[in-house]
């Protein structure tokens, strides 16, 4: 029985570590939705592009790892801005369903582009970080680093949103778009900046994931839907709600997967999501409208 408890604790800790990563992804998606009111269904595919960019820079070009990481973050940030300018901006006043569909189109486009460029083989950087043993608990160094970096990035984003003029404008714009010009705010610039920030966060997530997972064109599907559900559960656009929901979701996946089987973790998590939606359709932490 004692053995069981240690492994359960390990599952809880792993869930916590996964939660940090999911919270980072949810933050980016929520930020964009909160400001622009469009859900980027292809958000995790931006992250996939970042993973390939890091792979290309590090493994193929032979650049140092930190250069590859910086390249990945910068590229996805630019990609976020490009995505806004060329894909979202033209449909800003279109029906929400059309906005969703164009981002869905980007999802398939990026998947296909990755397949054409890199093939369907699983790739990895060949970087293996050691594991850490605390008593009987065995933890992956890559996950610990990912957790620490993700939380730092979330904290930095929080400070940016609360301390700077730009950040305050980002929070304000979702509350009253129409009067932003009276404040001297160019809403188009805020949109572009937010999209680049959302992209940068996806790029950062790519750096963290590339140390733990193999890269393949469909990797976005392992994270995209779950990120979206987390955001919906936390109340779309509610950054704090998304943060909490990420950790709740991760526990379902990790502990559920430990107690039953790995796949059952996801089943439990999604069941929890469906039940939540029946009880509180606007999300667990819906903001007052």
């Amino acid at each position, binding site marked *: 029985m004692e053995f069981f408890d240690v492994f359960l604790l390990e599952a809880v800790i792993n869930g916590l570590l996964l939660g940090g990563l999911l919270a980072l992804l949810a933050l980016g998606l929520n930020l964009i939705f909160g400001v622009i009111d469009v859900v980027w269904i292809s958000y995790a595919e931006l992250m996939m592009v970042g993973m390939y960019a890091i792979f290309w820079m590090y493994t193929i070009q032979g650049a140092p790892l930190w250069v590859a990481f910086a390249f990945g973050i910068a590229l996805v940030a630019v990609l976020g801005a490009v995505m806004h300018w060329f894909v979202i901006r033209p449909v800003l006043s279109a029906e929400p369903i059309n906005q969703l569909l164009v981002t869905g189109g980007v999802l398939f486009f990026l998947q296909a582009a990755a397949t054409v460029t890199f093939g369907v083989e699983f790739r990895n950087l060949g970087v293996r970080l050691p594991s850490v043993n605390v008593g009987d608990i065995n933890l992956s160094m890559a996950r610990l680093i990912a957790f620490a970096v993700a939380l730092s990035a979330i904290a930095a984003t929080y400070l940016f949103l609360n301390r700077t*003029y730009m950040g*305050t404008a980002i929070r304000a714009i979702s509350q009253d778009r129409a009067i*932003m*010009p009276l*404040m*001297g705010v*160019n809403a188009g610039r805020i949109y572009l900046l937010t999209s680049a920030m959302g992209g940068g966060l996806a790029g950062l997530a790519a750096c963290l994931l590339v140390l733990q997972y193999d890269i393949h064109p469909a990797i976005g599907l392992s994270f995209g839907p779950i990120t979206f559900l987390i955001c919906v559960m936390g109340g779309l656009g509610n950054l704090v709600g998304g943060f909490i929901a990420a950790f709740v979701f991760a526990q379902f996946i990790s502990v559920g997967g430990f107690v039953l089987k790995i796949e059952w973790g996801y089943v439990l998590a999604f069941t929890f999501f469906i039940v939540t939606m029946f009880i509180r359709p606007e999300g667990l932490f819906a903001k007052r409208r």
Partner: protein
Amino acid sequence: MLELRDVSAGYGSFQALFEVSLSVKAGEAVAVIGPNGAGKTTLLRAISRLIDARSGDLSMEGCRYNDLPAHEVIGLGIAQVPEGRRLFPRLTVEDNLKMGAFTPAARARYRERLDFVYSLFPKMKERRGQLAGTMSGGEQQMCAIGRALMSQPKLLLLDEPSAGLAPVIVQSIFELVRRIRAEGYTVLIVEQNIQQVLKVVDRGYLLETGRIRASGSSGELLASDDIRRAYLGV
């Protein structure tokens, strides 16, 4: 300071303003009065460039600005307190004020302006950490005026500051307008509450169905038979 010549504007096929001309000189307080639906809010929206003037000229200190993007109008020194206050309800009072100082020029003076607004409205200093949406209507109006003052505007536009407020609060809002005047601000105020507003301004224009029907000093307008009959009920 502000000069409108033959400005027409509207929404889609609906024309709300017909060749409106008016001017505001530095140091003046001017009111645009008129009934609901006369085009008063449209007029301020046109001045702030939130909608395009279809014809005519807008100029500020001799500069025509018909084609300036709306978010650059504040750079001319024109700040607007929109109808219904339009605070950011889930931002704190201080963050709302901060938004009023968003432009680079205003940021440089942020501290100084914040102190000024807090000295004008000590209540806002007490409430600085409170979410703006949780304050009373009168307090929100103070915050909205304070937000517009953060950019140190040359001209302050006030859109129906008394609308939706309890009568006792309405009194204090006009008292505020008087104090802002005393601080040396040039004010253009749009109001339905004709009797009250004419007491705090120098001059006024009467706007009806998108046209200027009358203009004159406050005293002249208050004494005018037409206005007395139609709006003051005497």
